């Protein structure tokens, strides 16, 4: 090999690569992104917490931040460019036939190929250097006063180390694999398939899939398997948030696994390049490398050929050929046949299809619902949840195969013949379209097959093809046609493969950006990435009209694109002079006139759709009304005194099919204040035909302020009341903007209405959240430390309990549930009227209706969609057990019947209205619940607990108070699970909640429980999991019976009162029930009034037997890495505690020996434990009774001493 010749090739390739527009595009993109990060408009994050680059507190310049940037940049953005440049390097020479010329020179294939690889790799290392320089410039050199708090001191190592450790191996890997694939196979599609496959595998699996049950050894295998090393970084440093201080000051410590990963994947890159070059070398001057057998066969065929008669000399006339032009479809069919065969010869398809299927399987099997509970997949849920992934994959395939299809004749030089064939361009393109349709069909069928297998494995739900045919077939058809014809039209316009790729991928990227930033609406939602919300209870009823119009719009655009593609398809090469003339005004006008018939339908449909959306609940009309409401009333009414609702009497007629409703009724309003009220403000919805009365007399409110002001003839003195009557109708058929579902709705298959907000029923007073968006959003209210002292208002619902009577008329086959008890129920013709009355006052009311089956228990009832009976028994058990045990623990349930009603999954929440709990399909009803996990029981128990913690006890409106609702519901669930399902179920639930908190907490943002208001990232897991655990530990600390007595008394104290409960009220109240008040105070200080964390680590564990047949003595060094101080059990254990297979005889029975210790935060302690058995492990808190971070570190295998 001549080094000189190799370097000539390398230099040439290096220069050529750096001159390519593609590389300049990459550089521009990297500069822009670097600037965006420096300005805080772009964020890069692999892990959770404030480690996210661009986050509020973490330095953008820390080594962790730069490592994340390098990882994401090089493995996502660089990948496509590097793959294209490296992979196509030799292919391009081959296609341009330059290779043939080079073959005649002394240049050896190895010199040529290694030179190419060296040149292109070096070019991308130069790009990396420029990228690094840009980051240093933007992040550390150029001044930026707005970002001072996220800029740390400049350290060269923060930039260089990630570049060398992460970026260089990634570039070597990407360029090596792409070069190897491109050079070895000379197939461009494979060059793109490989990086996409890796990216998808990494982004959707390797970087994100980390269930709590995954063992450490398998986790390390996956870390090693990630070519980007992103999983290693995430799992080692980012998954459990260590706080900004750590990330800002520490260096990334690389371990042996990391170095092994880097070395392995760099070697894979270089190895792939070597293999590709080896194959290339073998075929450099021959079309094939052949085995001896193949050579023999070829020789035999050649001799047979030479022996054969040399062709026929018969005349052509004897062939009796006839010719008649083919029809459109026959031509298209013929073209599709050849095109399909060419597509089938592309290896990319065989790579993509399994990948797509794997991805869909992965997504489906890891689908989660409330509290991360796995979902039971029905065909419709599966088809709809995977629709976006499916669409994305097929669209990506269409980009590459669509362009390749258009290029095919030109690339193979068949165009010289093909363009003169007596076929219409339309038929030819139709053939290509059909062939691409086959690609779509193959992908869809493979995915459907995979889905059928999922259903089969689930064993609970029957498979049905209908939802797949509807969502992946019928609904996707316009997307397929529109995008494919768009690719066709773009190609015919620009006639360049790479520009077409760029434009098509740009459209995809733009759509992704619009989706993420919520700018996508029904008119622009061409890929239906959002907007299609499936419910098994009714097929595509929500926004159906908009959906149909959207599909028609994109079909009509497909026609327009089609027209453009067929007009511009270059069968005759245009003359330059005539092209110049084509830009004259008259010619342009003529072109427009000809195109205009094809634009009429898209324009009309688009305008209609846009208008409908603007009239919808989140359209411009509603937005303007909301803004006006906010602007005109904020100053006057936000802190104004309002009277309270005492009684509600509502007649409600619902027409689900038409999505209309009529309301008539009245509110009994009482002035509980000392002052006289002259005006009563009511916030109203977008209703029609409104009529109002006051104590029976007609009244005309002042509507100028968008808040209806009722000026009373008789001012409302203290204790006085007035009955405001109303009558109006509403119509909710106008579409939303198409980004998903709706919290409350009327659709043909179900109804959910509540009195939270003014959507359905008049809302007494001013609603401060209306008209607030990102433009006028304000920081959460700051409360003083003693905010809870005195009478505090309720955080939701009425301020005092009220009586409610709802008379609901629905279609005859509907069941309508309200709060309270049924007092009358009748069917007249096609309507069903039911009247509900509260048997005990309530603080809020709702209406849930649908076509239900019902299962009843003791004072309980479950209303569910007839096909969703999977978890009904488990949920009813939860209902019955909750009524019994929660009643016993927290106070007798004051209402007669407790019911749960299922509603269509247009939203994924559950709401615990008194006596009438509403559950979305995915919560409980479609939870994948197994005897081991009891997840349907769990979510039901949580929601039912809100009858006590939320209804009987209304939290106050202030920080920390919501924990009395959500945290207490979790605590109740933990208790009930153990009570009903036993020790193991209780232990597993506590572990589950602990993991959710550990994974979801934001170390820097976490505040003490008293201050949690839901406004900070990570507040969610504190409100639910940490609070639930804190109440659990409190009960353990003060004794469960004491705690339950205190809690029962606490509810009784606040139930129905004017003052509402704050967390501070709770801790003050419970003190009286604590046997050890000093211990209690210490606990409250640590867990309610400061942010405390327990994190134990077993540093060493050794054991020896004291005497020949005597007990064992284990010595363990324990470190409390956290800052809290709690008594905790430490034990030595042996055997399997809860074997999955109870029929199998355990190797050794489970045994544990415990001792209790207390270690302060940061301290270490040596603990000695004696056990009558040989210990296997030292485990801190084996019974899971204290909340720990990183529990996996709190156990260690015992070594012999």
């Amino acid at each position, binding site marked *: 090999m001549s080094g000189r010749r190799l370097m000539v090739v390398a230099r040439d390739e290096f220069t050529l690569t750096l001159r390519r527009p593609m590389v300049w595009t990459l550089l521009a993109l990297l500069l822009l992104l670097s600037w965006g990060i420096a300005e805080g408009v772009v964020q890069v994050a692999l892990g959770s917490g404030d480690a996210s680059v661009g986050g509020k507190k973490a330095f953008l310049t820390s080594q962790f931040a730069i490592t994340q940037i390098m990882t994401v940049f090089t493995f996502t953005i660089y990948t496509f460019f590097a793959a294209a440049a490296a992979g196509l390097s030799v292919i391009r020479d081959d296609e341009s036939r330059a290779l043939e010329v080079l073959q005649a020179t002394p240049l050896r294939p190895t010199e040529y190929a290694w030179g190419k690889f060296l040149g292109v790799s070096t070019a991308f290392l130069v790009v990396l250097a420029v990228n690094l320089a840009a980051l240093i410039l933007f992040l550390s050199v150029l001044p930026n006063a707005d970002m001072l708090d996220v800029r740390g001191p400049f350290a060269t190592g923060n930039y260089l180390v990630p570049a060398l450790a992460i970026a260089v191996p990634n570039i070597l890997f990407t360029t090596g694999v792409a070069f190897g694939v491109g050079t070895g196979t000379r197939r461009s599609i494979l060059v793109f398939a490989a990086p996409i496959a890796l990216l998808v595998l990494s982004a959707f699996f390797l970087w994100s899939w980390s269930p709590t049950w995954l063992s450490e050894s398998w986790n390390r295998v996956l870390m090693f398997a990630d070519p980007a090393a992103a999983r290693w970084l995430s799992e080692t440093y980012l998954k459990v948030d260590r706080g900004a201080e750590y990330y800002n000051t520490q260096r990334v410590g690389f371990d042996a696994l990391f170095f092994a990963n880097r070395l392995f994947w760099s070697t894979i890159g270089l190895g792939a390049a070597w293999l590709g070059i080896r194959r290339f070398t073998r075929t450099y001057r021959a079309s094939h490398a052949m085995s001896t057998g193949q050579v023999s066969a070829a020789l035999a065929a050649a001799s047979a050929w030479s022996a054969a008669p040399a062709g026929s*000399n018969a005349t052509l006339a004897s062939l009796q050929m006839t*010719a008649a032009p083919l029809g459109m479809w026959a031509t298209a069919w013929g073209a599709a046949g050849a095109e399909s065969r060419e597509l089938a010869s592309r290896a990319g398809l065989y790579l993509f299809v399994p990948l797509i299927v794997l991805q869909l399987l992965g997504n489906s099997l890891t689908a989660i619902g409330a509290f991360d509970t796995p979902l039971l997949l029905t065909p419709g849920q599966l088809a709809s949840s995977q629709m976006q992934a499916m669409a994305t994959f097929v669209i990506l395939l269409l980009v590459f195969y669509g362009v390749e299809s258009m290029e095919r004749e030109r690339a193979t030089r068949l165009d010289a*013949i093909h363009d*003169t064939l*007596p*076929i219409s361009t339309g038929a030819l393109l139709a053939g290509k379209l059909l062939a691409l349709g086959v690609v779509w069909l193959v992908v869809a069928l493979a995915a459907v097959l995979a889905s059928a297998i999922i259903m089969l494995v689930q064993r609970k739900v029957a498979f049905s093809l209908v939802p797949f045919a509807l969502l992946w077939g019928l609904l996707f058809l316009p997307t397929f046609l529109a995008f494919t014809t768009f690719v066709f039209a773009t190609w015919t316009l620009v006639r360049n493969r790479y520009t077409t790729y760029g434009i098509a991928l740009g459209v995809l990227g733009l759509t992704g950006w619009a989706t993420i930033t919520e700018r996508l609406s029904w008119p622009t939602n061409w890929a239906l990435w959002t907007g299609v919300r499936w419910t098994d209870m009714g097929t595509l009823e929500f926004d159906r009209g908009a959906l149909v119009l959207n599909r028609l719009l994109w079909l009509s655009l497909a026609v327009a694109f089609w027209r453009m593609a067929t007009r511009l398809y270059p069968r005759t090469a245009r*003359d*330059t002079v005539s092209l110049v003339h084509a830009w004259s005004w008259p010619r342009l006008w003529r072109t427009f006139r000809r195109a205009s018939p094809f634009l009429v339908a898209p324009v009309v449909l688009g305008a209609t759709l846009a208008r409908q959306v603007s009239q919808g609940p989140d359209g411009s009309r509603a937005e303007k009304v909301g803004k006006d409401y906010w602007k005109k009333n904020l100053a006057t009414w936000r802190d104004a005194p309002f009277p309270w609702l005492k009684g509600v009497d509502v007649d409600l007629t619902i027409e689900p099919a038409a999505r209309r409703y009529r309301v008539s009724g009245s509110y009994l309003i009482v002035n509980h204040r000392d002052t006289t009220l002259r005006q009563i403000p009511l916030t109203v919805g977008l209703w029609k035909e409104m009529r109002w009365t006051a104590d029976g007399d007609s009244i005309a409110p002042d509507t100028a302020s968008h808040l209806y002001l009722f000026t009373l003839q008789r001012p409302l003195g203290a204790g006085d009341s007035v009955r405001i009557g109303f009558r109006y109708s509403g119509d909710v058929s106008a579409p939303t903007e198409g980004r998903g579902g709706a919290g409350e709705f009327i659709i043909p298959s179900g109804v959910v209405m509540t009195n939270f907000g003014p959507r359905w029923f008049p809302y007494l007073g001013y609603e401060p959240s209306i008209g607030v968006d990102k433009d006028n959003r304000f920081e959460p209210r700051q409360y003083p430390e003693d905010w809870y002292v005195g009478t505090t208002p309720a955080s939701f619902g009425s301020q005092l309990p009220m009586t409610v009577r709802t008379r609901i008329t629905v279609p005859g086959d509907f069941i309508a549930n309200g709060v309270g008890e049924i007092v009358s129920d009748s069917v007249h013709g096609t309507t069903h009227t039911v009247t509900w009355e509260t048997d005990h006052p309530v603080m809020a009311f709702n209406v849930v209706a649908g076509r239900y089956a019902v299962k009843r228990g003791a004072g309980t009832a479950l209303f569910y969609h007839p096909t969703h009976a999977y978890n009904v028994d488990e949920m009813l058990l939860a209902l019955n057990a909750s009524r019994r045990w929660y009643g016993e623990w927290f106070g007798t349930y004051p209402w007669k019947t407790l019911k749960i009603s299922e509603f269509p999954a247009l939203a994924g929440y559950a709401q615990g209205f008194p006596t009438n709990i509403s559950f979305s399909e995915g919560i409980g009803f479609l939870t994948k619940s197994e005897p081991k996990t009891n997840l349907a029981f769990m979510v039901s128990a949580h929601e039912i607990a809100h009858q006590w913690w939320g209804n009987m006890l209304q939290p106050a409106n202030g920080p920390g108070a919501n924990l009395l609702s959500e945290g207490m519901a979790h605590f109740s669930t933990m208790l009930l699970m153990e009570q009903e399902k036993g020790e193991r179920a209780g232990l597993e639930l506590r572990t589950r909640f602990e993991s959710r908190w550990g994974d979801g907490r934001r170390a820097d943002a976490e505040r003490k429980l008293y201050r949690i208001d839901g406004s900070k990232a990570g507040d969610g897991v504190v409100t639910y999991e940490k609070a639930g655990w804190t109440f659990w530990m409190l009960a353990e600390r003060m004794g469960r019976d004491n705690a339950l007595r205190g809690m029962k008394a606490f509810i009784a104290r606040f139930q129905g009162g004017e003052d509402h409960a704050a967390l501070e009220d709770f801790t003050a109240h419970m003190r009286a029930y604590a046997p050890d008040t000093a211990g209690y105070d210490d606990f409250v200080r640590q867990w309610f009034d400061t942010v405390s964390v327990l994190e134990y680590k077993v540093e060493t564990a050794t054991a020896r037997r004291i005497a020949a047949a005597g007990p064992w003595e284990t010595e363990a060094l324990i470190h409390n890495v956290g800052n809290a101080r709690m008594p905790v059990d430490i034990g030595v254990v042996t055997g399997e505690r809860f074997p999955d297979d109870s029929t199998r005889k355990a190797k050794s029975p489970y045994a544990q020996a415990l001792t209790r210790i207390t270690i302060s935060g940061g301290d270490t302690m040596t603990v000695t434990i004696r056990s009558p058995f040989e210990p296997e492990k030292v485990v801190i808190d084996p019974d899971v009774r204290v909340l720990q971070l990183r529990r996996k570190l709190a156990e260690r295998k015992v070594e012999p001493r």
Partner: protein
Amino acid sequence: MLSVRQLVKVYPGPVAALQGISLDIPSGMFGLLGPNGAGKTTFMRILAGVLEPTAGSVHLDGEDVLANPEALRASLGYLPQDFGFFPHLRGQAMLEYLLKLKGVTGPRGVSALAAELLERVNLAHAAKRKVKDYSGGMRQRLGIAQAIAGNPKLIIVDEPTAGLDPEERLRFYRLLAELAQDRTVLLSTHIVEDVAVLCRRFAVIRAGQLVALTSPHDARVQLAGKVFEGDVSPEQLDAVRRTHRVTQAVLVEGRNRVRIFDESGACPEGFEPVGETLEDAYFLLMHAQPLTAEVTA
């Protein structure tokens, strides 16, 4: 009858590839001769409807083929100079595909017809091989097979014998000759012998201009008794070039074997009379003045 009027083609550069060619091409085999870069392929591509001219018109039996290329395509058999096929299709499948799109069939169906056509071009043995494994000559023959399929009124073949061995070339001559009996076959080549063997009439274009329109016989007859051949030393060659029109000079064993044309018919010293060939005529025509439209039309 194919009628071409004032055909002009200017490529960006600008390069005037055709400078107003007018020509009537009757039924039968018509040759188009010219050196490399003369504009032959441009001319053929325009006639085949794959290239838009800058100006001019082309009519086939009165039909304006530039305005209505679809009409031409239905009656065209075209073998371009540079072409390819779908590499992963087998020869038979590729030909079948093209026959289907052309709407061509035979009494026993498209497959049988494709097989027979492959036999006519001596490719039957390679029918099952993928096209990407074909040699250049085999690909050329597959191209010929598709061009002659059906009953096209007009056949345009651009350098059709390039890459063919003598046997296949003769086979192709025979096929073309058969086709030319009742239709127009336009043969573009720089191999003068092809035209001499096959064409009743031919045109010569040079630098985008038509310089001759004649028949092989007429072209040769004009030279009768005026072509001489002799050996000339390298030193004498320039002098001969100054005094005579040299049609060929080949260096053999240190001396030039030179053919010259002398209008007067007087044999120069050291030369002897030889029989005139079309190649002689071609070389002489290459120096002729461009013909006017009135002459050619």
